[in-house]
């Protein structure tokens, strides 16, 4: 029997547990030149806010050891244009679309969530409460349990779509925040967003990013992500979507063993546009070699 990669996260049926991480997959169009988008488990879009946002000044990225800093600053075309352009393209593919929702006030998150809920081609919303790159919003909501839970409660009321809340690693106790958003009605949790970081050019005395600080991603953050997925998946009853520096199938397997029910691939897309396909094939091969029937037999099976 062919092993099964199918998973069901908060009612989102996926052919396999490999998703794209928000902000790393453009509008999907860019990657359709390289891969068949319908083979993905799900596509998570770039953060969408109510109105168009220009993002931060350049330089917006800087390469660091085994990773990169970014401070894109949530550049996006706003929810209406997103629906008109990006969703029009994405809905043609037989793949769940999860829209990442960004905002700078509760009202904005609610309004974007309501607007997206009117569309019938969206499978779920991912609440971005962890972007380190914009002054107002994002991390403001994700850094303490009360504001994270409050925002989740409001958005929960505004939509019937499955609600994933994406957590920041830049917090004191991530289990507390995870439990808070679970109680507030989150259907799943995704983690980790980027770690706050900074790099400096000592010759010019200037920061490497125009925004001074940015978010660190790539394999450098993977051990942090694995630890947090391990802790959060023990603390909550809802599914956990793991991400942070996944470059290949074996990296993804670490997340499943730590307790993730699905994974998202981010920075690796920039280096290898076909990486998601390679991971999906690798997972099937791993199950076959180990005579396992389903990926679910790996989830949370870390032997300690």
């Amino acid at each position, binding site marked *: 029997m062919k092993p099964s990669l199918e998973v069901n996260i908060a009612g989102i049926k996926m052919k396999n547990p490999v998703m794209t991480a928000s*902000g*790393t*997959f*453009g*509008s999907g169009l*860019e*990657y359709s*030149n*390289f891969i068949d988008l319908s083979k993905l488990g799900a596509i998570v879009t*770039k953060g969408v806010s109510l109105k168009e946002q*220009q*993002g931060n000044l*350049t*330089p*917006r*990225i*800087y*390469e660091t*050891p*085994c*990773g*990169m800093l*970014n401070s*894109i600053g949530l*550049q996006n075309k706003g929810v209406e244009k997103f629906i008109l352009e990006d969703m029009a393209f994405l809905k043609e593919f037989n793949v769940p679309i999860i829209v990442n929702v960004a905002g700078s006030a509760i009202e904005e998150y609610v309004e974007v969530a309501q607007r997206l809920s009117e569309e019938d081609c969206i499978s779920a919303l991912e609440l971005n409460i962890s972007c380190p790159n914009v002054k107002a919003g994002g991390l403001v909501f994700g850094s303490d349990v009360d504001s994270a839970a409050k925002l989740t409660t409001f958005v929960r009321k505004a939509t019937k779509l499955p609600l994933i809340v994406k957590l920041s690693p830049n917090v004191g106790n991530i289990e507390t925040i995870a439990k808070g958003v679970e109680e507030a009605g989150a259907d799943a949790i995704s983690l980790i967003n980027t770690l706050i970081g900074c790099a400096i050019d000592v010759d010019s005395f200037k920061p490497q990013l125009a925004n001074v600080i940015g978010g660190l991603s*790539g*394999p450098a953050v993977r051990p942090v992500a694995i630890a947090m997925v391990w802790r959060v998946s023990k603390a909550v009853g809802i599914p956990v979507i793991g991400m942070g520096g996944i470059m290949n199938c074996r990296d993804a397997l670490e997340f499943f063993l730590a307790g993730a029910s699905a994974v998202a691939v981010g*920075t690796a*897309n*920039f*280096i*290898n*546009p*076909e990486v998601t396909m390679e991971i999906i094939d690798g997972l099937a091969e791993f199950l076959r070699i180990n005579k396992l029937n389903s990926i679910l037999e790996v989830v949370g099976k870390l032997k300690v």
Partner: protein
Amino acid sequence: MVHIKAKVLAKIEVAIDIYKLRLSCPKIAASVLPGQFVHVECGKDREFILRRPFSVHRRLGGNAFEILFQVVGKGTRALAEIEKGDILDVIGPLGNGFEVSDTVKNTLLIAGGIGVAPLMFLAEKLFAGKIPFDVLIGCANCKKAVPFDLQNIIKDRVFFATDDGSLGFKGTVTELFLNHLKKNEKPDVIYTCGPKAMLKQVALIAEKHGIACFLSLEERMACGIGACLSCVCKTKSGQKRVCVDGPIFDASEIIWE
């Protein structure tokens, strides 16, 4: 646009710390246009994970192309250690390429440093189309000068500017540009590539003299295919991505900082 393995046919150090890599890759060579670039993995399994973008320097028939690069950091250092016969992981051709209108009669190419890279490929196209052009190249000194040896025919139309005067004019390439404008017939179009500060000066001079100007912009980029939104620039028609909307832009469109 393909993601492909390309075999290194040759590596030549053309000036101090400046290398030319010749890659066998029919899929890219067959369709690449002057001004387009390739995104090259330089640090497989090493700590520098991102690809590096390089303009295509020359096309050798339909089977091979060359990139020209200067060693400036870890990625380019690793690339300089590549040997003939090695395999590189390449995505390309990327970006839009230089537009050359049929009505152009007289053009001027202006390069700053390693900015000479895409202009050689463009010069080949102009030469093939029998469009006259002069070339101005600025670099630190004669040891950093990349030979612009297109069929030897145009050598007398290539002019260097060096900071120390060790080759050609002593001064910046923009000073040389101003001198050139005084002594020669006004070009219809300027094509330029180099550091941003130089591009800005060239663009402003071109505008002042009413000359059309196209420039090749550079920004730090991650994906190279328009997804990550790292390499944006401000233009009069909104924010653009250098990797897919450029790297070639009409200078009059750019909003300079």
